[in-house]
């Protein structure tokens, strides 16, 4: 523990291998120093290698970092990792998309020839084969996917980090050591694909499950297709652009709509089969389950009705996040899930997919930001940094110091209130935390009964709405 401070000063990425709880035992002053030094180090190293960061820094006249807020002008708006025109995807200009991504990473992509590529999935495969990167994508509702250029080596570190977190979050050796004592994985999603969840799958199977047959996926053979995810949003945008927009969507892709409708129709049955298999195959064992609360509740409710309870071993772990997605759950949903699953060791996280680290919720309902992620609150109107004082509310921005192949400083769309600057959390962990009332600025603005005549209704493609949930 005693050497963690020095290790983080030397290289913040080293936190991925640390005893996780030690990160919250540094003093406030040590955290501030680790963060200021880390920002200087990362900015100094990455600026010359990442064209877009350099350009933004030049535009904003950011040179030396004297105080932590000096970095704020070069935090990326969430638009930066999707700042390519959608026409690159529509017209299969993956050569241009590669050149664009090259401006966002330290990895040299100039030798990659993507000129003949037609689909996003094929482009991701090409980058997997020919570069050190394992590019992940988001599942944005607009059809425009963000592409995050993280290396394979750092994906491995991300999963190792997750293992250390599970083992040490509630205190040193408080949880199972999955890296050495493998658990079956139960994941209600796709085995393959390019979104962050699936990018971690290979490493989770190797490091947590030990072998492929010790992992259960809802779609064990299928790929979560980036082209299909993007199609949903593109259809909406295209329809709003009139005939011209529709002309620009490849007919081959339009045909995949039907596939999706089929998939959606089968989904309740697929879920049922998946959960039945999970129960019968792994009952009584300690397992690792990932999933959103809503899905887990549906499973628990149905299972309890059929008389099943206490299915898994009491040392199992549950990794969850994603909020409640607007669904109403009963007040005792956690109790019901616990009763059904047979354990209550839940890790609830706040994270953004561009980053390697995350913030886990403590017993007081606070998400604790690890020392290698530098938090900022910005004024939602001016974008200026707000005081680093307990109880302040604003737009959250986070700079993760662990990633080394891209700039992981991002402004989120979330309104949060923070604490831990003057008074630490009653749980005893030191450092900044977020209160659990987190909401999207876009939700806030949409529900205010302000009526204007300008706008264009979106063509809602209900058949595709469920894709977002599947990407978790």
């Amino acid at each position, binding site marked *: 523990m005693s050497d963690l401070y020095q290790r983080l000063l030397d290289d913040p990425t080293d936190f991925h291998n640390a005893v996780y709880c030690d990160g919250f035992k540094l003093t406030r002053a040590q955290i501030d120093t680790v963060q200021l030094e880390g920002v200087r180090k990362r900015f100094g190293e990455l600026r010359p290698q990442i064209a877009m960061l350099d350009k933004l820094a030049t535009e904003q006249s950011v040179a030396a970092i004297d105080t932590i807020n000096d970095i704020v002008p070069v935090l990326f*708006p969430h638009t930066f990792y999707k700042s390519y*025109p959608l026409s690159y995807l529509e017209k299969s200009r993956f050569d241009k998309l590669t050149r664009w991504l090259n401006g966002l990473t330290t990895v040299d992509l100039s030798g990659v020839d993507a000129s003949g590529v037609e689909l996003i999935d094929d482009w991701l495969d090409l980058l997997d084969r020919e570069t050190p990167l394992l590019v992940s994508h988001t599942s944005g509702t607009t059809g425009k996917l963000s592409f995050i250029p993280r290396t394979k080596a750092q994906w491995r570190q991300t999963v190792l980090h997750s293992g250390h977190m599970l083992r040490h979050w509630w205190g040193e050796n408080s949880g199972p050591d999955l890296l050495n004592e493998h658990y079956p994985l139960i994941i209600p999603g796709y085995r393959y694909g390019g979104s962050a969840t699936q990018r971690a799958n290979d490493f989770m199977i190797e490091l947590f499950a030990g072998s492929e047959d010790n992992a259960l996926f809802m779609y064990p053979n299928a790929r979560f297709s980036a082209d299909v995810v993007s199609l949903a949003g593109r259809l909406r945008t295209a329809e*709003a652009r009139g005939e011209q927009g529709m002309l620009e969507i490849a007919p081959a892709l339009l045909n995949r709509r039907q596939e999706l409708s089929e998939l959606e129709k089968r989904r309740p049955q697929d879920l049922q089969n998946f959960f039945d298999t999970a129960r019968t195959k792994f009952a009584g064992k300690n397992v690792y389950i990932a999933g959103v609360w809503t899905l887990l509740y549906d499973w628990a409710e149905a299972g309890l009705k059929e008389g099943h309870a206490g299915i898994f071993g009491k040392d199992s772990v549950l990794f969850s996040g994603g909020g409640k997605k607007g669904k109403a759950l009963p007040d005792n949903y956690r109790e019901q899930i616990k009763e059904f699953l047979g354990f209550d060791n839940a890790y609830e996280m706040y994270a953004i997919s561009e980053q390697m680290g995350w913030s886990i919720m403590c017993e007081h309902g606070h998400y604790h930001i690890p020392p290698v992620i530098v938090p900022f609150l910005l004024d939602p109107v001016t974008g200026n940094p707000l005081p680093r004082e307990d109880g302040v509310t604003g737009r959250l921005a986070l700079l993760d110091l662990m990633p080394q192949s891209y700039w992981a400083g991002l402004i989120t769309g979330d309104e949060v209130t923070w604490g831990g600057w003057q008074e630490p959390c009653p749980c005893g962990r030191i450092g900044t935390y977020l209160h659990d009332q987190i909401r999207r*600025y876009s939700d806030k603005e949409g529900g*205010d009964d302000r*009526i*204007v*005549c300008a*706008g*264009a209704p979106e063509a809602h493609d209900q058949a595709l709405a469920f894709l977002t949930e599947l990407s978790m």
Partner: protein
Amino acid sequence: MSNKQYNVPLIIRGQIITDPDFEFGGRRGGVTFHTPDVAKHIGQLTLSAPSKMADLYSLSLDEILDFLADLGQRLRFDSNAHLREAFSLSCVTSGLSESILRYQYENIPFFFSRDEMAMMVERSCGANYLEGWVAQPGGMPGVSARVRAFGSRAVHVIAGNAPIVSILTVIRNAFTRSDCIIKTPSNDPLTATALARTMIDMAPEHPLVKHLSVAYWKGGDTTVERAIYDPRKIEKIIAWGGFDSVKHVTQYLQPGIDLITQDPKLSSTIIGKEAFADDTTLRSVATRLALDVGAQNQEGCVNARVIYVESGTDAAGIERANKLGSLTFDALQKLPPHLSTPHKAFDMNLKSEIDGARMNDDEYRVFGGRTNEGAIIVSQDDAPVDFSRQLGCRVGNIVPLDDLQNAIRSVNAYTQTIGIFPETLKEKLRDQLAFQGAQRLVSLGGAATVQHNMEKQDAIEPVRRMVKWVTEEYADGALFEAIAEANPDIKAVGM
């Protein structure tokens, strides 16, 4: 930040209710306003029996227009306290700057000029139809018909981006002899109220006052809406803008309720190659384009957003488009403050998108967009920016094209106005644009500053739909006897 509190009274047929039952936050500036609980007064809000419309028919159309003209005289911004309060709240809640709002409030009396209102009547229903029964030409032999336009009982869910919406609603309700409940939006809860209060000050017992109510409730409030949107109580709903507000309304639709929507729309521009004839022409085009983008701070559906330009897409063509972008941005900055200013609450999501575009100089040239001054983004290829539907706060996107057919195909039913240069191009394209869905074609520069004909909006005639067209038919009894007896000497056609 203003912490001033406003009272938004509930006005029911001349009665002003001010109980501060609820508090609402306006969208911008931290202002709050108090309103009475509409549910408590719901019984009085709707007109209990259609027969109570009769008092409106004791007035002639001339008397109605006289009343409105008189009202216009009292709507002077310098002396009307109700309007000044509405203005002061709008300065906080509206997307328009104080200088633009002031100009609009000062202009209110213009809309109440008697001549202008008389022409409004002619362009919509025609005075003769509002005043009496008008004989109809043709029809079956032996049968004649007369038609008269009657007022209806309506709820108007109005938009708040400019005071004109409240003004038109009050005038149209009066001259169609209708009974209206105006549901105000949170971004302008007081302008319609100010008009109603001025009417009450004038003549509290006047029939036009007795058929005007103004209420704020939160859109989607089922207690209120379920009680009001009932075919026994109202016949029409006129909903302006706001996708959500229209969605709320649709759940109450059933036979007996006619929904008239002025849907949310976006507008665009088509500029032909003639713009690049010489520098003087290009400057003129840029100035006119700046007006279409920037007037009323691009808060309206009529404002230009995506601008298709027949500049060509080769290097020289892109340079031409960039030149137009640069000149347009300069012209935008020079617009007079009563028409356009830097936006006081620039959309931060849009700002993020502009920042992203600026980083990608292979694809976009961005003029401006540093803070709240507005921007012209020139695509360096023939596609609009992906965030084109978010454009606002004086941000336009110039899209260079080789062939204007791309622009024409991009028009759809959400396209309201298209500003076109030159005039010959407008004539050449107008039929084709109409097929695609465009609703108003104007000379470049005329999208957002002048409007000839509000009676034909979004390609519908809202006033003609607000009234009930009642037919009275006549035929001689002998005709019916002949039909009943199948008399071969008298032929009844068409049945």
